[in-house]
């Protein structure tokens, strides 16, 4: 057993999760591939959203996968970085908006 929690080789084995529960695994992969098809959003827009979310959820597998996906789709690196900043802005905004709770609580407890 390897000592790391994350091993890049494991990404190739993603589909093996179906081996222990085929029904749910198949449903997940079916859903996943449907989500990324061209729809009201283009496949490229979805790829950039996925890249931003990958950073927000700190998924190294997803970051590898959607950086490569972006390169294959010809998405420029400047666009990829802007997408990451969108994710970072929402994440930091989500932290900071709690500052209002802190302020409310502070004022509530203070004379």
């Amino acid at each position: 057993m390897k000592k790391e929690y994350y091993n890049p080789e494991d990404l190739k084995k993603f589909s093996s999760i179906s081996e222990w529960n085929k029904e749910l695994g198949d449903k997940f992969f079916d859903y996943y591939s449907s989500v990324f098809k061209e729809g009201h959003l283009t496949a490229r827009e979805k790829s950039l959203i996925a890249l931003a979310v990958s950073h927000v959820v700190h998924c190294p597998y997803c970051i590898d996968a959607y950086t490569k996906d972006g390169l294959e789709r010809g998405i420029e690196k400047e666009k990829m970085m802007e997408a990451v900043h969108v994710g970072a802005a929402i994440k930091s905004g989500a932290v900071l908006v709690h500052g209002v709770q802190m302020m409310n609580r502070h004022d509530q407890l203070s004379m």
Partner: protein
Amino acid sequence: MATKSLKAQQSELSNTQRQLEILSNGIFKNGQLPTFKQKLKEHALPSIQPKKLSILQINIGYMCNQVCAHCHVDAGPDRKEMMSRTTMEECIAVMETNEIETIDLTGGAPEMHPEFRWFVEQIRERTSVNEIIVRSNLTIIMANKKYHDLPEFFAQHKVHIISSLPFYKRDKTDRQRGSGVFDQSIKALQKLNRVGYGKKGTQLQLDLVYNPSGAFLPGDQMALENDFKKALREDFGIEFNHLFTITNLPISRFLDYLIASENFEEYMHALVDAFNPAAAKNVMCTNTLSVSWEGYLFDCDFNQMLELKVASKHSHIRDFNAIELEQRKIQLSQHCYGCTAGAGSSCQGSIA
């Protein structure tokens, strides 16, 4: 960026046997990945068989004014291999006596061959070949005064131009093909446009080739074509007909890059995972033959660079025998995965 070919550097990878060993050992020997032949069997596909020959791709020499990082030919200014006029005459004799629809001239930079213009003129004058393709790297048109009138020469002989342009932005193009290549390519495209290439109603065909600038596969050809057309029109006023996406095959300099950047195994996994049986039925070696500067015949330009001659007792252009060649077995190795990945890849772009 290297300025010498692997051959001039005496690199281990300039040895084709070494390349074939790398492509057959490791992950393919230990069973981690199936060999190309095993993959065909998995999909119940017969070995790849030639159909009627329609394209003769002639590599007239390996000399080039560029030293591109991905080049499967290992071309460059230090490569001196050039087709003799005798071999060119032998090629013309085959065109005169066989129904060959398309002649596809490649290199190196084919325009650097001193007999290049003579060869094009002779093909037009003496044969009924329908289409002459020249694979131009674009920068050659700007490289020296003696090449500045190439666009007019191409137009006069109704040559179909297919040119590499890795991306519509400077940085990616220059990283793959050398500093300054993007700007020179843009100037050359504008010159080609001025004589009518890529313009509606002129019948002067100008196609571009996109190949990924790194260890990843090309995306959707149509989507990339739309991007290229929009960007080149808006930024530089350039028009062209089609964009062909071509997968980098893991041989020669691209193999060297894959190994040096520790991307070889991941790239081979990506190629094998993307194997498309539909593409395997339409690979270019089924209707194309490649001729080397020495006149030897190969199933494709990649096999030429791996020195895998056609499996036929008549393997030279002077002994050309169409019927016998149609019966040959195509020489396969793991680099063939490059032509069957995703939407497939050929010198004319996607195939599936």
